[in-house]
């Protein structure tokens, strides 16, 4: 772990991030915008599958996933840059560790939904009652994971003594 931290701290990218005052706040702004893209699009997709907006054809609602992917890409890039900019702070932080763990869980859950749940939905179907309970559990877990990920991210600066 210490070797990784030393490697990151000695990188040119690290020097760039910490030597310009505008970089960090700019990364935060993009990270917050990415958060909105991820949560906003997943609320529409996941709540539709759960049965919140019955008029939505479920086979079409995942067009909004393009916003999720763009938001996630923005936050993966800015998130990696936060870690490169201050590695000693993040790796040992309990909120950061839990956040990364939940992102991995959310990734496996999304994979399960894509590979196992979505193919079972008949084309043009609006009938949410035909979906198995695994569809509702998977989408409810998705919202639970992502709200927890946001809260854990916000807690990172306040758990440094734990």
């Amino acid at each position, binding site marked *: 772990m210490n070797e990784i931290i030393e490697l990151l701290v000695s990188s040119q990218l690290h020097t760039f991030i910490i030597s310009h005052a505008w970089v960090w706040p700019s990364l935060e702004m993009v990270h917050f915008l990415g958060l909105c893209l991820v949560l*906003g699009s997943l609320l*529409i997709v996941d709540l539709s599958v759960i049965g919140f907006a019955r008029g939505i054809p479920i086979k*079409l*609602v995942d067009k*909004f996933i393009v916003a999720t992917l763009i938001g996630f890409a923005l936050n993966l890039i800015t998130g990696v840059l936060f870690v490169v900019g201050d590695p000693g702070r993040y790796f040992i932080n309990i909120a950061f560790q839990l956040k990364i763990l939940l992102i991995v869980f959310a990734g496996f859950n999304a994979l399960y939904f894509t590979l196992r749940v979505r193919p079972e939905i008949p084309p043009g179907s609006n009938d949410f009652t035909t979906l198995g309970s695994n569809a509702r559990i998977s989408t409810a877990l998705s919202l639970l994971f992502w709200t927890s990920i946001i809260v854990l991210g916000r807690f990172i600066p306040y758990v440094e003594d734990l």
Partner: protein
Amino acid sequence: MEDFLFSLEDSSLGLLISSSIWGYPIALSLHALGMGVLVGISVMLSLRVLGVAHAIPTSAILPFWRIAIAGFIINLLSGTALFFGSASSLATNWAFLAKLAFLALSLMLTFRLVKAAYKTQATSAETHRFLALGSLASWAITIVFGRIIGYIF
């Protein structure tokens, strides 16, 4: 005015935010969640008008506007609590004042977008696109100013 702002900071809500261990991070977390809900869904409503998922009827997406309003209420409450915690310095923080101005503009544009493109469809597609692009830009600027608040605090 200053006495009033200090009295907010000395209120039990103000002290809960500024002096308790978990008051501030809990209010901040709620504020980030409410932002994700309100801005996130508002952005999706704009993207739909601009052509994303255009096969889904706007009337089918309208129920999500109620969720966005729930996000707004979460942030009105958490934002008020955060303001009580540092009322005297926030009242003169230019980024905070700019954020409030753009928040008002963002809400106005999004309300008009929902009315024009989701509820009545009376106005032209041109108007809908203008409102969608305007609200996207305005929400982004609101978030940018929100982030600056902490740096000039």
